[in-house]
């Protein structure tokens, strides 16, 4: 593709991302919406989108991105999923569109939702183990480390791409391999599906995936985040006992102040029940993506807190202002 065009797209997208972030920031400042985490989150998502776009066009070694991601996750929990992920941004925008059209959202039954959350691990393991299995079926003659790594990373399923795919294809549209009328369509997991299945079948699968997530995302809030293998790999870090301290950014609940009004359960875009079900203290779940919507909506002062370590960064308060923001 023409480098000139790429450059233009790059500049425009970064500009658009930053512009949206700027507009939202001005809105927060002007309308005194500092208490609205939702707006802050959109600002960060827009900025992150612009930044990722910028980084990926210089093709940074993906290993660095991965390491950065794990470090962030270790310290901040699934902060990445809620506040950075561009695929998440797409689904958030769809939700906003749905809100604007005054359509209701659908709810996945709790048991199915939990099953979906579990199926993340299966998907994750499948993607991670297939290259190893393929590698074992056809063992290399020469046990050179570089060759081994190269084979692992370049195989039909590239394990690392499971982790970053929700990020790249959305950000860099010209890496997509689905070409219709000379337009590049790009989407999460596009490269993988096509690389594995071949052009034709891959495109069919890809189309199916796109329809499911796009239409599903319109009716169900954050639909893909429920199966996302990236989310699983990030969530799994916080599951180990040794990392009990790990998600420094977490939601904390004060048991005595809570009247169990159920608002936190209903507003959660991932339908996480733990915030409601747990007695109090630090909320321990690998499903929560700390988007802090529950903290924002909790109507009792100081009941839910978004804590960074022991310091509370954001506390639920009386949000009883007239609903200018929505």
């Amino acid at each position, binding site marked *: 593709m023409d480098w000139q065009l790429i450059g233009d797209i790059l500049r425009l997208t970064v500009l658009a991302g930053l512009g949206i972030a700027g507009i939202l920031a001005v809105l927060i400042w002007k309308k005194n919406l500092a208490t609205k985490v939702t707006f802050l989150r959109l600002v960060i998502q827009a900025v992150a989108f612009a930044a990722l776009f910028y980084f990926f066009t210089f093709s940074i070694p993906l290993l660095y991105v991965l390491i950065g991601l794990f470090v962030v996750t270790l310290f901040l929990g699934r902060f990445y999923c809620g506040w950075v992920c561009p695929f998440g941004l797409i689904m958030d925008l769809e939700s906003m569109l749905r*809100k604007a059209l*005054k*359509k*209701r*959202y659908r709810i996945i039954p*709790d048991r199915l939702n939990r099953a979906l959350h579990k199926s993340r691990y299966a998907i994750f393991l499948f993607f991670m183990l297939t290259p190893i299995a393929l590698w074992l079926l056809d063992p290399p003659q020469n046990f050179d480390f570089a060759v081994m790594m190269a084979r692992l990373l370049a195989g039909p399923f590239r394990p690392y791409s499971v982790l970053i795919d929700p990020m790249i294809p959305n950000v860099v549209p010209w890496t997509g391999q689905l070409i219709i009328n000379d337009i590049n369509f790009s989407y999460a997991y596009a490269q993988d599906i096509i690389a594995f299945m071949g052009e034709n079948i891959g495109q069919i699968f890809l189309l199916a995936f796109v329809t499911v997530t796009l239409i599903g995302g319109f009716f169900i809030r954050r639909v893909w985040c429920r199966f996302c293998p990236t989310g699983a790999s990030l969530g799994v870090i916080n599951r180990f006992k040794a990392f009990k301290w790990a998600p420094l950014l977490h939601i904390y609940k004060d*048991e*005595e*102040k*809570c*009247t*169990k*009004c*159920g*608002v936190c359960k*209903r*507003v959660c875009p991932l339908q996480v029940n733990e915030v409601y079900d747990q007695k109090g203290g630090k909320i321990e779940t690998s499903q929560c993506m700390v988007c802090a919507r529950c903290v924002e*909506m*909790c*109507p009792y002062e100081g009941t839910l807190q978004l804590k960074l370590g022991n310091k509370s960064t954001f506390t639920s308060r*009386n949000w*009883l*202002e*007239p*609903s200018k923001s*929505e």
Partner: protein
Amino acid sequence: MNKAALEKKYTPEMPRKEIDELRSTIKAASQRVIAENIERMKKADPHRPEAMKYFDDIADLFGQRQKEIQAEKEKGKKVIGYMCLFAPTELILAADAIPVRVNSGWYDTSKLGDRVVPVEVCPVLRSTIGAKMIELSPFLEQSDALISVLTCDGMTKLSEILSDYKPIWGMNIPRVKDSTQSLRFWKDEIKHMKTQIEKFTGNKITRKKLKEAIETSHRATKAFRRLQDLRKGPPVIMGRDAMLVNQAYVWDDKKRWTEKTEALCDELEKRLERKDWVCPPDTPRVLVTGTPMFWPDNWKLPTLVEEANPRGIIVADEQCSGERILNDPIGVDEWSMDDMLNAIGERYLMASTCPCFTSQDGNEDRINWLLNKVKEWNVQGVIYYVVRGCMLYAMEYTRVKKALDKINVPIYYLDTEYTREDVGQMKTRVEAFLEMLTARVDF
């Protein structure tokens, strides 16, 4: 009237003359009681806020507000009464009808209720039946239909008895409040109530109207919470005044009530700056919980506490005639019809701390909420007020006592009736408790 309908009737036929006589005497007595209560409230606080004057006027049940509702009714508005707080008032407001609460606090009518139900029954119900028999309560008379939420056993049967007179819409409330299936069930009830109200009033509840109604009650909750926060510090308002303000919400116009309460809060904030306390800041701070206390007659406990020697001050209450009316806002996530209805359902079911519920951990919410209140409002003693026949509150006492014993806050169980005869005896009991609290404060 045909025979079947006559047989169904619960209440005895009373001659018209007797009804009128009884009504005029009890009404006159009641007006005297209202005036006396207000007079005593005025005397208790020498610098009573100006804004309280509005609430004094609105507190006269036979006065201004009754006439207003009558005028609205003549214009074609419907009045929908309700007994328990679970009735979705936002839906009533959204259908351009007027919600009023019709529970009665008259002592004298409870004796009339004895003709229908035995004395062992909760006096709130007996009094409501009696008030209906002699057509005393203006709001009960004016309401075109009643929403009865079947909470305690008494309320369930009361709705049957009142169905002699008015169309009654029963709302079935699940008793386990935190399970998914009960929530589903209750949301269906709310949706059904919506269609019922729409059919009855002839006004469609649109998304816009419902949003407006919810925002109205949000603003009211905001004003209410402001008042509550002001009571956290040294006392700037008598407990009775605040309780009256809270209770006036159930029959007042919601928007006007919000305005006036905000004005009251402005005044109290100034008072806080002046450090003009209603009583010495070391007065024992009391929380009242238990059976609802309805204006006008059933005002004896707050009066006793705040006029006793040594004096106490009520800084908070946990009653469905008080703070439970407005404490919980409706948490709407998205302003679509569906989500608004879900939010209304959840607010009325899940946030409530009424003892008619149980949950997997046994209505833990109420105890947690009480403990939180004791801490936040610096409460030094809790009075657990129960009228005879109120089983739910009486049976929950032991658990509440255990929880409060753990944090070393004294609790006193005070049982009484709808009668003025035991005031002297109650006074001794309340004063003994307050004396103990004062000693603890000094200590």
